[in-house]
């Protein structure tokens, strides 16, 4: 091997061009035949075809048996948008996005900034804050169901301590969604914090020091130096927050299951409750199509507007 490379070293330039035009045609076909089809088959069969079928089924009324024949055009979609539970789900998904952007991301940035200081215990704090993100949504949801429980939970004890009537937060139509939102922030802020910690590590210290010498206050340093330097992290974090908010399901199921009276429904819990459990394939597929269109529009629009520099 060493002898080989030594002898090859001299005419390396010539060899590189020659070898590169036909990089050992030996085995090119076998490798394509062996290596590509498994991925292609799995992906087509379980990702692309189902998505196409969702678009197709969404035009039918169908219970999932035999073949869909009862063509109803876009009726499933008009049913959907006239359904109070579904519009509530859309509003809730919007609310989740707003809370993620206005509460969760600032919280994440604030914590990341604090953890950038060299104080003892930073690593421990970082671990603790990331912990909820690692837990399964279902487990986190059940834990918070206990926290909110009006008879045995922490809220019961807190209310008792202040001597007020115990609130049954998750059974209250008006409060339940806020309770769910709090759990979402609790569960996901650590992930965003980690993104910002990574982003902050790339910030050049000397720029901050220069600003300090010029007499910038703490807030000015943050607003005019750190934040602009974090902008690509910020765009990424916002993107994840939006996409994550749209597909929320696992966390809501153990908490409220979409209730009480549909007040905490999200698009996916709606799809599950009305499409899957009642086997209304057409209606459920229509929800899938709506979700797909929103996701793809966001992904393309966001990439085009905000991420073209990255």
């Amino acid at each position, binding site marked *: *091997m060493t002898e080989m490379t030594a002898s090859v070293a001299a005419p390396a330039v010539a060899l590189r061009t020659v*070898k*590169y035009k036909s*990089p*050992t045609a*030996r*085995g*090119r076909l*076998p*490798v394509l035949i*062996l*290596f*590509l089809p*498994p*991925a*292609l088959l*799995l*992906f087509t*069969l*379980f*990702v692309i*075809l*189902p*998505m196409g*079928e*969702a678009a197709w089924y969404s035009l039918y009324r169908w219970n999932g048996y035999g073949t869909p024949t009862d063509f109803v055009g876009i009726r499933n979609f008009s049913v959907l948008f006239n359904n109070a539970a579904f519009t509530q789900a859309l509003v809730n998904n919007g609310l989740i996005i707003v809370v993620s952007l206005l509460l969760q991301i600032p919280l994440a940035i604030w914590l990341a900034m*604090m953890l950038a*200081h060299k*104080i003892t*215990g930073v690593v421990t704090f970082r671990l603790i*804050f*990331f*912990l*909820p993100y*690692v*837990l399964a949504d*279902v487990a986190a949801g*059940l*834990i918070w169901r*206990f926290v909110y429980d009006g*008879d*045995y939970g922490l809220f019961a*004890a807190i209310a008792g301590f202040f001597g007020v009537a115990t609130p049954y937060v998750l059974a209250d139509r008006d409060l339940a969604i806020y309770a769910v939102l709090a759990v979402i922030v609790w569960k996901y802020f*650590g992930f965003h914090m*980690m*993104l910002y910690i*990574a982003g902050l590590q790339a910030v050049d210290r000397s720029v901050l020091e220069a600003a300090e010498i010029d007499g910038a206050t703490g807030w000015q340093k943050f607003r005019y130096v750190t934040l602009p330097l974090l902008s690509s992290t910020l765009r990424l974090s916002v993107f994840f927050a939006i996409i994550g908010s749209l*597909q929320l*399901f*696992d966390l809501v*199921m153990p908490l409220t299951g979409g209730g009480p009276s549909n007040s905490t429904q999200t698009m*996916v819990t709606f*799809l*599950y409750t009305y499409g*899957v459990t009642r086997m209304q*394939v057409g209606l459920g597929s229509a929800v*899938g199509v709506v979700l797909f269109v929103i*996701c*793809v529009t966001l*992904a393309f629009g966001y990439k085009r507007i905000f991420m073209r520099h990255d």
Partner: protein
Amino acid sequence: MKPATRLYLYLSLSLVACLVLVPLVTTALGGFKSLGDLRVNPFGLPEQWVWSNYTDILFGERYWRQMGNSLLIASVTVFLTVVVSAMAAFTFAHVKFFGAAQLMNYFLIGLMFPVATAILPLFIRIRDLGLLDSYWGVILPQVAFGLGMSILLFRNYFRNLPDELFQAAFVDGCGYIRFFWHVSLPLSRPIVATVSIVSFVNSWNSYILPLIMLNTETKYPWPLGIMVYRGEFGTEWQLVLAFITLTILPTVIVFFLAQKHIIAGLTAGAVKS
């Protein structure tokens, strides 16, 4: 640093840490209480440590079966995801063929939407294939939906391996497949680790796919099992809390043991794609 700043930092950080930890710690402690104790004193230490809540679960079959199911599903998912996506990514990185760029974009479509969008047609497909209520019905869609990101991560990594390796190997008469097996894969441990961690965590925590594909309780992975348990024991919160604690315990232990890799894997997995 001024003492006031230091104080402010520690106070704020501790406050948030408490908000994170209190629900978790009270859950674990709640598992040691009797129901009456839990009702009057959900925050404090148990008046009497009721170990039987935990030991009954640990000596029962149910807990271990669910953990075993989850482990089996997650392991097969990780294995298939790594093998299938590494192979596909290798062709994208090293083999020039007609339509490669288009095919890569085809796989990237998978990054744009969640499983939930196609869950009903997926259910019908799995049913028609006769895979309903089998582990394969959960594993195959999981692998398929993980392919987009995994292929992207692998391809970027393979591409950055030094070109000289490739040329040296080919001069020595090494074919693509041997190169993949003897050079690419052994050099790619970090990215194999990242892909494995991401797909393992996703599968271990996954709820909606098994919920729709599995009907038999003995086949349930733990997120489904825990919901069934909670449904059965209703307001006997002390048992439910013990069960929750035991099911998240492996995650917490592994997280603390391998925190560096897990944090890096989960954030890098997200960022690099």
